[in-house]
């Protein structure tokens, strides 16, 4: 079975299972177990989940832009394909747009993506693109949101502290990405990725971080409710806040055209 790891999964994704017994074990698990655990913990919690997300994008000059959207997630198979339904509320020019993703876990199959534009009543199919492209103009990348396959990197446990496993991830195809490698600090108890650090190809310096700044336990699941990405090269940063998080709410079959044209009410509130 093939897994992906993602920031949205890690943070928004409404799914942070406690594979508690493994975490509490005294001995250090091997690195593959750690990344699998973190991935599964981050991404496939419960059968479904939702959150109201607010993004604050700040540029080098301190100008801010905001995005607000509701996100609903449902797993097709635990550890496999997933569906995402994103309903935009702000800014005004994208209000009521819907972004639908059918994520395919297989590395050989691209995700299916649709965008609904209400003013034209138009359902646009979106071509699979470079996943290291900004998500809705923020410092989060599409790949941070829709997932980076564990199979794209080699993983190495470089340090075990009191609190974290520190895993170094090196891309197998460096020509496809803008980083040389990235380190992830994974909480030893919850397997929550708490910090990701990206290092530059030529200088080897740190140029991008993603931090889980606030973690709350919601319905028994530790949940990141504030996450910040900082781009040291552009001077920009984006903060994501997650409110009204809810798990296992019994989301129906909403990931189709009918609900693009008129979203279910739980997505619009």
């Amino acid at each position: 079975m093939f897994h992906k790891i993602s920031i949205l999964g890690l943070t928004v994704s409404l799914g942070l299972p406690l594979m508690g017994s493994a975490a509490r074990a005294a001995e250090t698990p091997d690195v593959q177990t750690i990344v699998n655990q973190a991935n599964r913990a981050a991404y496939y919690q419960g059968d479904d989940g939702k959150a109201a997300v607010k993004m604050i994008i700040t540029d080098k000059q301190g100008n801010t832009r905001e995005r607000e959207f509701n996100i609903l997630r449902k797993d097709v198979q635990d550890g496999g394909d997933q569906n995402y339904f994103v309903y935009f509320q702000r800014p005004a020019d994208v209000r009521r747009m819907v972004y639908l993703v059918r994520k395919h876990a297989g590395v050989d199959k691209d995700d299916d993506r649709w965008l609904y534009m209400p003013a034209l009543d138009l359902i646009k199919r979106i071509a699979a693109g470079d996943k290291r492209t900004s998500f809705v103009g923020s410092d989060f990348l599409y790949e941070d949101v829709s997932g980076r396959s564990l199979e794209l990197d080699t993983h190495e446990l470089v340090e075990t502290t009191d609190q974290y496993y520190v895993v170094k991830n090196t891309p197998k195809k460096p020509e496809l990405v803008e980083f040389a490698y990235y380190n992830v600090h994974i909480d030893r108890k919850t397997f929550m990725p708490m910090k990701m650090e990206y290092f530059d190809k030529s200088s080897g310096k740190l140029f991008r971080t993603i931090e889980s700044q606030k973690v709350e336990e919601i319905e028994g699941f530790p949940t990141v409710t504030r996450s910040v990405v900082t781009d040291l090269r552009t001077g920009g940063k984006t903060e994501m806040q997650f409110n009204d998080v809810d798990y296992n709410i019994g989301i129906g079959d909403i990931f189709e055209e009918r609900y693009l044209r008129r979203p279910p009410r739980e997505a619009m509130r």
Partner: protein
Amino acid sequence: MIATRRITAAVALLTAAFVLVAAAGQDEQPQEQTNPIREFLDRHEIEYHGFYEARVGARLLDDPYQSKDLTIGEGRYQFDLFSMRDWGDVKVKGDVYGDFVTEEAEFDLREANVFMRPTDSMDLKFGRQVLTWGTGDLIFINDVFPKDWVSFFIGRDTEYLKAPSDAVKVSLFSDTVNLDVVYTPEFDSDRYITGERLSFWHPRLMRRAGEDDELDISRRREFFEEDETAIRLYRNISSYELALYGYWGYWKSPAGFNPALTRAIFPELYVYGASIRGTLGKGIANAEAGYYDSVDDRSGDDPLVNNSEMRYLVGYTQEIARDFTAGVQYYVEQMLDYGDYEGSLFPGSKSRDEFRHLTSLRLTKLLMNQNLMLSLFTYYSPTDEDAYLRPMVNYKASDRLMYEVGANLFFGDERHTFFNQFHYDTNVYAGVRYSF
């Protein structure tokens, strides 16, 4: 004099609207207490959004058939009211604008509809609504819902290409197949080029014409008699979207001439078609076809009514670099019974080709954190030897403020071809929009 008063009224109205909008727009402040309108709307759980926009555009060429160089000049206020009730949703969206080309204050009710989901397998939407289906990108075969070609050619936002329908839409859903039925009790035509504001090839005068030779139209206004029905049957297989379409109504733009009335008419039209869309390689491919059954000239020998046609389209879109997308389409329009058409032509008439081939290319590049968009849409017809270019730059200065400049450029060899008939309408425009 009257015109001046109209302009004054329009300006006054728009100024008032802008003040309202600006006041309503500052929602960083706790303005609910100070704005009675918003307070009222909030109390009744009505969402209120919209924008204020100014847009100006002018002809690049001297048009002998128009007195104004201005192709667009308007101040526009759009309100968008939406309310979710237990029994359904109510939406009302309208535009008030002062038009400095026609010198009138206008109200365009874009949407006024009720949506209900009475059962798990049925959706209902009735009232004024914008309707779209089909797979083409700015090329339409089975989407026979009204288009506003005037807005499209003068550089209004793409939203205005779709004109609303006064219709009932019933959608039925099942595990195997879904069905949409749209019934429009009174025919809704396109907002086509009449000669007002934009010059065109006048089919009867057999020359270009403008504001002095506006097309006389015989409209269809018999409620429940001159109606339209459109259906779509669709389902997804894996990630491929398949659909069948049917339409029973009228040509949406004038496609015939009644010599007794000396007016252009909307002859009867039935359309049957199919489409498919899905992933192919790294991109999205689509194919669509339609049979246009021109009921009033099935034999093809009536020179005053359009012949039947076959229409075919294939398209492909792919992201070719980061934040850079390209889309290509190939479209063919085939006139049926061409021999009968040729034989019936009046001497000296410009004959259409049996096959009209049309290609399109869309390039879209996003820059500056996706706040700056450079876009080019090009139509080129190798058979008509004409082209229509739509370059556009759009910059989002903030979450509320957007600037746009663009152009509508028409080229060609002959005066009567599909795009080059609008040669003198070639224009550039600029706009600014404040959304709230």
